[in-house]
């Protein structure tokens, strides 16, 4: 059978299209260890296996849309783990409204369509309030159905400008954002880069998603205000694995510092490639990347010296409550928590406090109670701005002698 070039070309061309489609699917909704095909998964310790069959009077039902699969699964799984711990702690302390708290999980997969269907599935289950989603595309999709159903939600992600602009007064008034907005981090980060570290020029690199673009755009605005010149600015597609060309480009403009916004599972690869390229510029970043495997790959912890970071929370700088959480998290999941885990924990506590404050399971009362919730978190007392955005404290640190060192915990209020 002789295959003509045209026929063969058509076959391979079709193959390219199929693989490309698969690749784009992988960017939005591919699999991870705890991925589940079920839209919702019961997460409480109650004996009930089907929440629809259970009487609402037995427990207070809340929901969480989070990413246990997809490109943000590393963060999403940690956040759900934190929420599980909080539910256990709250129930150990007597629950809310005198009843146990029950949490239903639905996988948003960091995708608009999955975020929407996950939200709708939780609404149909009869949740009285919700947490999440984590990804900005899923948050955008989730806000309209939540608003239509009158269900409030507190997200421990989606801290981008475009989400904040849609939430609060004049928009989706039942949608609340707990982590610091990227604009706060960029403002505080830019100030620290200038005043504490003395940099005059910078090259930016961020992930091409809501988070990365938010950070890069934030620094593009804030660095010049502090007198730091932005010499180059680049984005990379989620799923990228070879960063050498862009790192070399950043080095070619000879900046004082590389400013980077990456997910926790991408940053070590970027740092390893930077080290292999022999680039000496210090990095400043929006990600926790301290791990033994990274130290090993770079030749020891001191290889990270000079790396500065701005983040919503740092485990090494945890207070007493934070340390208790870390111990519980380690014991339960045999891994180190990142900031998303602690924010998941705290978000659940804020929601539970609001439900208690509302004094009923009525979604409208809970929404009003969240707006006026009286709780002081490890990141400060919860006060929402007009866009239902909390402005918690920001942690600033630097790697020195192979160890992370806390430079300051800055208040985000201007």
């Amino acid at each position: 059978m002789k295959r003509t070039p045209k026929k063969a070309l058509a076959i391979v061309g079709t193959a390219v299209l199929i693989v490309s489609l698969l690749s784009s699917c992988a960017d939005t909704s591919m699999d991870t260890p705890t991925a589940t095909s079920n839209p919702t998964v019961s997460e409480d310790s109650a004996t009930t296996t089907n929440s629809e069959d259970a009487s609402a009077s037995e427990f207070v039902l809340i929901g969480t849309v989070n990413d246990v699969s997809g490109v943000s699964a590393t963060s999403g799984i940690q956040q759900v783990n934190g929420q599980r711990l909080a539910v256990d702690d709250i129930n150990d302390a007597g629950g809310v409204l005198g009843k146990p708290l029950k949490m239903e999980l639905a996988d948003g997969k960091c995708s608009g369509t999955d975020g929407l269907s996950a939200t709708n599935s939780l609404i149909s289950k009869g949740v009285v309030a919700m947490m999440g989603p984590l990804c900005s595309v899923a948050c955008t999709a989730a806000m309209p159905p939540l608003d239509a159903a009158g269900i409030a939600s507190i997200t421990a992600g989606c801290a981008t400008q475009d989400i904040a602009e849609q939430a609060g007064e004049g928009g989706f008034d039942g949608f609340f954002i707990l982590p610091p907005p990227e604009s706060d981090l960029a403002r505080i980060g830019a100030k620290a880069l200038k005043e504490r570290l003395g940099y005059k020029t910078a090259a930016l690199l961020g992930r091409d998603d809501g988070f990365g673009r938010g950070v890069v755009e934030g620094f593009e605005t804030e660095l010049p205000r502090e007198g730091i010149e932005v010499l180059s600015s680049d984005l990379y597609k989620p799923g990228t694995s070879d960063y050498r060309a862009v790192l070399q480009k950043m080095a070619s403009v000879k900046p004082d510092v590389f400013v980077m916004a990456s997910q926790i599972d991408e940053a070590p690869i970027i740092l390893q490639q930077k080290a292999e390229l022999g680039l000496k510029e210090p990095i400043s970043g929006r990600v926790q990347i301290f791990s033994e495997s990274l130290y090993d790959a770079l030749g020891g912890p001191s290889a990270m010296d000079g790396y500065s970071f701005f983040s919503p929370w740092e485990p090494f700088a945890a207070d007493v409550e934070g340390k208790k959480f870390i111990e519980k998290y380690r014991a339960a999941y045999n891994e180190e928590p990142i900031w998303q885990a602690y924010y998941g924990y705290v978000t659940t506590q804020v929601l539970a406090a609001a439900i208690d404050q509302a004094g009923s399971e009525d979604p409208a009362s809970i929404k009003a109670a969240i707006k006026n919730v009286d709780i002081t978190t490890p990141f400060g007392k919860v006060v929402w701005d007009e866009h239902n955005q909390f402005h918690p404290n920001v942690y600033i640190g630097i790697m020195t002698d192979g160890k992370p060192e806390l430079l300051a915990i800055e208040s985000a209020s201007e």
Partner: protein
Amino acid sequence: MTTALQQLLIGISAGSVYALVAAGLALLFGTAGLLNFAHGDLVMVGAIATWVFVKYFDVSYLVAGLMAIVCVAVLGEMMRRVTGLRTDKSFESLIVLTLAASLIFQQVVILTAGANAHLVRGLAPGTRVGLAGVSLSIHEVTLAAVCVVTLVVLDFIVRRTTLGKIFNAMAQSRRTASLLGIRVEFYAAIALAISAVLAGVGGVLIAPVLGANYSMGLNLLIIAFASVVVGGVGNIRGAALAALIIGIAQTFTAQYIGFVYSPLVAYIIMFVAVLYRESGLFRAKAKI
């Protein structure tokens, strides 16, 4: 000028691995007509296996790499036997079977090694050699050298040996080759084994550069497919050269246009090549 030269070296380093992966794909498709959607995942398994052997068996990178290549070759043969890959299967069957194999490989890696990227230390980490302001790491130099040597050996096999003549006969017409007494399925299995070894070598070489991650095969597969189209379907030299061109073009795109546009390069080159030379750049000059 120094920046352009440095990007050229990075492009050659990336393109070398692309070339190795594309050559394996082209060999298998050219000789056996098998379009292997799991080819990128064989590269991924090579990288993951290297990490596993280094981390859990406490062996050196070189030893781990050799063990990983053997693993990938065995896995390729297992895939052939389990899925019943044969040259007379329809294109649709091949898509389903190799796609299924691809997804299974990824899921097994996720379940056993996790979804995160794993870092692997290569040869002489942090040591670079250079001249006139441009440099490459020892690992990148080794990577390029191994790729070139492997491709030269492959080219020699295909063009100068009896096995190569059989491959070329199969590329011309598997039916005629069969009528001449050539055991087509046996030699298709040989082609698959060689293709898997090339994927394994690629995975071992790329692991210390890109890390090892369950999803890394997809990008490599896209570039390999594009290279096969640009180089002339089934043409090994053409595919390897096209892969090198794509690797270099990606780095220059990152430097002078924007890194976010780099993934588009493979598609644009493929589109332009097909538009102006439908049979690919090198089809007329060689059989495989």
